[in-house]
């Protein structure tokens, strides 16, 4: 034991003398752990929220009975089923507005509520009495209470003027949900004796068949392992995970570089240890212990940093998920112990993977092996050939996945294999470029410049690979975001055809508003729309009803149409289909889609395909009159108006005054557009932040590689100094060399980045969201990135170069003093 401690002390003493190298190793591990754990924290937080939502009285994880074609059904069905032995419990769901904020209101019947329904509030005997007895209680999550700006015990009023029972905090509840007794809910939602669904508990005996009790009035919905929200948000989280993984690997590049260099520097020490009688097993064991200990320390610091990164990014992620998918994610982090353990685990595993080559070398190291500086060219050639072969293998995997992969994971697989292959082949490409330079060089100094750059390649290659990956991802993601941004804004201009949008609280108000608008001379046209929900081939589909108006014919963003498409829409037997739904259902123009409607099957000829960016659900667009005929329950509350621009503010003010509409219920086109663009920008804010982090980590990788290489460069530079090159001249040559290889890397990153952008647009986006964007190249953006890469390299190279420029002659003379 003492022996092991002494060996450990000796190994650790290396770091005391090489503080920068030690810092590099820790920074690499910390960065890798922090970025990976940060992303995982965000994903875990979101998944916890989905779980809470799914477990809220009849989410996707509970078996339930619902009416096939209606939002609610009579309460008497519940009584019939209970009498027939069905362990059902009624739930009524609706939305109410409190202090201008819309929240879900759930009415439950606590006595019959099955005990195994998710995380239903555990109401004790005393609580149960308070919950059901007047005035009752409104259960609410802490964050919802904060959002409503109410205190516990308050009884806020809803938009109709009725008051909720006093609020009581129930931490297990999903955000934006209020739970009350079902009787209270029926009164507040004005749905007396109505029920939205019946939750099913575990039956004690065998109840009577469902059809024999309620006929076809109710249908059974089996619980799903994956909720719809989880399915919809999968791609978003996969995207985040991919970024986390990329950052993790870039961090590991730093660790690999630091451990590799430390190993090379410690070779004489390891041999001396062996010569002094420390066995190979002891030395190797202590090397692993040292690495694991460092990984544990760095892992803990990394986790703390990861927590702060997640906390900083979470508000944007939550806003994106709310904007894109309607998912409610609490803005405050609460992490499980598994996250901490997994973070430490990933740090240790990452350190061991990054140090694997060095550890294997140490294990296989013969005690008498000596360095072979003369053979570097042969070794480098062998290494380049091996890496190039591995790169070709990775490209082959990318091709196979591209042709045969069907899933989103396969899409990311194409990207990963492509980038891995590109990183592996980079040193070979750089070597070829430098060799060409060497062949073309005239004069001894130029020859040395190129030859020495080639020799330096093996030491710098990992950092350059990290730089290549970070730049390629930057080019790829920036091109994709810019393409998306331009396409989205163009699409929004077409989609938001009306000048003013009104959302009435109910049909009666909708009729009143329309009648009032008819008498106004400043309104050029009233465009009444509607939306209904249906299931097509087992998928939830939104049916959008549009009026027949020239404005839509001119502006609606159709990607492909049949002849006379708009005219064929009017009778009601044709539809446009959104791009993502057409891909999901594999439907083309000329095909027929059957939509189950309350009156029977509704057959629709597909006469157009349109872009519907940002909508995770599939959508069919039909004539609004036909929609109301087929789905009579369709709320007729959505109204668009065509109004001259100068009349918009006056009209909105008049509407608000006349009907008490708030800003959410009436808005002009500019406001709706601004809100959509805000959601769009927030969605990509996280991507941009992770993008910047990755580039930063790559910059650190380059800096640390250059710093650690700086000392081992002295034997190469000292002879040049001895033959008359000044130190500033040497420093400027070194700087030129670093900037040259960085420039070559950045130039190689541009085509790779464009390939990444194409993969994101043509593979990942299509598989994740179902829409394909046109591919554009933005030359200015590419030039900017190359300049950023050069600046990052300049900053990274500056410190070692300044050190060299200021180096005392004595330090350079030492090279000869130690020469043997």
């Amino acid at each position, binding site marked *: 034991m*003492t*022996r092991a401690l*002494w*060996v450990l002390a*000796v190994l650790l*003493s*290396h770091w*005391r*003398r*090489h503080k920068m190298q030690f810092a590099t190793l820790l920074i690499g591990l910390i960065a890798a752990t922090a970025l990976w754990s940060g992303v995982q924290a965000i994903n875990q937080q979101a998944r916890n929220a989905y779980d809470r939502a799914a477990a809220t009285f009849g989410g996707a994880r509970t078996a339930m009975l619902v009416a096939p074609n209606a939002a609610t059904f009579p309460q008497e069905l519940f009584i019939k089923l209970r009498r027939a032995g069905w362990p059902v419990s009624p739930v009524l769901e609706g939305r109410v507005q409190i202090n201008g904020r819309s929240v879900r209101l759930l009415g439950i019947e606590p006595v019959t509520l099955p005990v195994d329904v998710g995380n239903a509030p555990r109401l004790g005997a005393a609580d149960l009495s308070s919950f059901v007895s007047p005035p009752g209680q409104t259960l609410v999550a802490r964050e919802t209470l904060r959002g409503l700006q109410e205190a516990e015990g308050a009884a806020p009023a809803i938009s109709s003027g009725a008051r909720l029972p006093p609020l009581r905090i129930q931490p297990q509840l999903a955000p934006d949900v209020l739970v009350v007794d079902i009787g209270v809910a029926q009164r507040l939602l004005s749905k007396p004796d109505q029920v939205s669904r019946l939750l099913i508990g575990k039956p004690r005996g065998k109840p009577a068949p469902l059809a024999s009790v309620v006929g076809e009035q109710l249908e059974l919905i089996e619980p799903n392992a994956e909720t719809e929200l989880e399915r919809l948000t999968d791609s978003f989280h996969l995207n985040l995970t991919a970024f986390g993984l990329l950052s993790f690997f870039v961090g590991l590049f730093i660790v690999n570089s630091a451990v590799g260099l430390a190993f090379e520097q410690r070779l*004489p*020490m390891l*041999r*001396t*240890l*062996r*010569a*002094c*009688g*420390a*066995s*190979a*097993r*002891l030395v190797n064991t202590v090397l692993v212990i040292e690495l694991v200990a460092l990984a544990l320390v760095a892992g803990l610091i990394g986790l703390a940093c990861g927590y702060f990164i997640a906390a900083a990014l979470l508000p944007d992620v939550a806003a994106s998920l709310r904007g894109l998918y309607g998912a409610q994610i609490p803005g405050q982090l609460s992490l499980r112990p598994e996250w901490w353990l997994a973070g430490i685990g990933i740090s240790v595993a990452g350190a061991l993977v990054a140090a694997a080559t060095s550890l294997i070398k140490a294990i296989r190291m013969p*005690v*008498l092996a000596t360095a072979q500086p003369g053979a570097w060219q042969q070794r480098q050639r062998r290494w380049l050939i091996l890496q190039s072969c591995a790169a070709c293998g990775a490209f082959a995997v990318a091709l196979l996945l591209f042709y045969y992969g069907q899933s989103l994971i396969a899409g990311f697989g194409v990207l990963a294999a492509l980038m891995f292959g590109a990183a592996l082949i980079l040193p070979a490409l750089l070597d070829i470029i430098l060799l060409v330079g060497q062949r073309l060089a005239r004069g001894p100094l130029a020859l040395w410049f190129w030859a020495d750059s080639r020799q330096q390649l093996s030491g710098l290659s990992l950092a350059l690979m990290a730089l290549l990956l970070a730049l390629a991802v930057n080019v790829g993601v920036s091109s994709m975001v810019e393409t998306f941004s331009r396409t989205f804004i163009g699409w929004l201009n077409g989609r938001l055809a009306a000048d003013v949008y009104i959302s009435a609280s109910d049909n009666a108000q909708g009729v009143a508003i329309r009648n009032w608008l008819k008498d106004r001379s400043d309104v050029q046209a009233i465009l009444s729309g509607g939306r209904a929900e249906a299931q097509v081939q087992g998928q939830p589909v939104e049916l959008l009803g549009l009026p027949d108006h020239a404005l839509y014919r001119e502006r609606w963003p159709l990607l492909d149409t049949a002849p006379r498409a708009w005219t064929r829409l009017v009778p009601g037997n044709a539809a446009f289909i959104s791009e993502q739904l057409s891909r999901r259902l594999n439907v083309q123009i000329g095909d027929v889609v059957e939509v189950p409607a309350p009156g029977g099957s509704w057959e629709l000829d597909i006469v157009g395909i349109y872009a519907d960016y940002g909508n995770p659900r599939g959508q069919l667009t039909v004539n609004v009159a036909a929609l109301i005929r087929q789905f009579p329950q369709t709320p007729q509350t959505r109204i668009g108006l065509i109004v001259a621009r100068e009349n918009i503010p006056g009209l909105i003010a008049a509407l608000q005054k006349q009907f008490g509409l708030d800003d959410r219920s009436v808005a002009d086109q500019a406001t709706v557009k601004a809100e959509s663009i805000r959601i769009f920008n927030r969605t990509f804010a996280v991507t941009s932040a992770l993008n910047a982090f990755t580039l930063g980590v790559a910059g650190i990788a380059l800096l640390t590689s250059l710093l650690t290489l700086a000392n081992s460069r002295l034997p190469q530079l000292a002879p040049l100094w001895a033959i008359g090159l000044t130190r500033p001249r040497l420093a400027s040559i070194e700087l030129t060399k670093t900037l040259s290889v960085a420039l070559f890397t950045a130039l190689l990153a541009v085509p790779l980045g464009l390939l990444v952008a194409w993969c994101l647009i043509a593979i990942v986006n299509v598989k994740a969201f179902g829409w394909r964007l046109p591919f554009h190249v933005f030359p200015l953006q590419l030039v900017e990135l190359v300049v950023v890469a050069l600046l990052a390299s300049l900053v990274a190279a500056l410190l070692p170069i300044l050190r060299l420029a200021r180096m005392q002659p004595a330090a350079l003379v*030492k090279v000869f003093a130690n020469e*043997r």
Partner: protein
Amino acid sequence: MLSIRNLSKTFSSAGEPVHVLRGVDLDLGAGERVALTGESGSGKSTLLHLIAGLDAADGGSIRLGDAEVTTLSDAGRASLRRDRIGLVFQQFNLIPSLSVADNLAFQARIAGRHDAAWTKELVERLGLGSLLKRYPEQISGGQQQRVAIGRALATKPALLLADEPTGNLDEATAEEVLALARDLVARTGCGFLMVTHSLHLAATLDRHLTLHAGRIS
């Protein structure tokens, strides 16, 4: 104490076998000081490495006390070096990240045989008292070699092996360092086998052997 019989070692160079040692016989008693000279590439260092168990012989036997070095495992050879052999190299091979004091005590500590009084005596005899807190790169070559000798003798080994210990030193320093080594060897009573190119230094030891064409003459 050290008995070598019919020791052979062959290397491969550019695909051709090079017979470095062709049946070396050597005996070295306790307290005996022997110099080994020979041309460059004659196998002097190889012989030292085989005795120390740093490399494996192709044939023959090396017996150190009751241990047969050629049949020992890696761990056994490490244990032998740790407990019974002191090694001094031309390149000093000090641990650059340890101070002089730590370098001196290093091998004795990992062997679990650290003797503070003996280390103190070594420090005095080697004249390292004022250098204990310095690091190897902060002292001269002669001083570094004195530290290396001190490290090798700190365990009071049965055999001290020195591979051209004065090769990197000027003549005066070389003589001074060797005198110290001789003095300390006499003090500990260990055997001393030194590889050197210097016939002058070789003459200062008890016996002078020459390695030629893979055999000792």
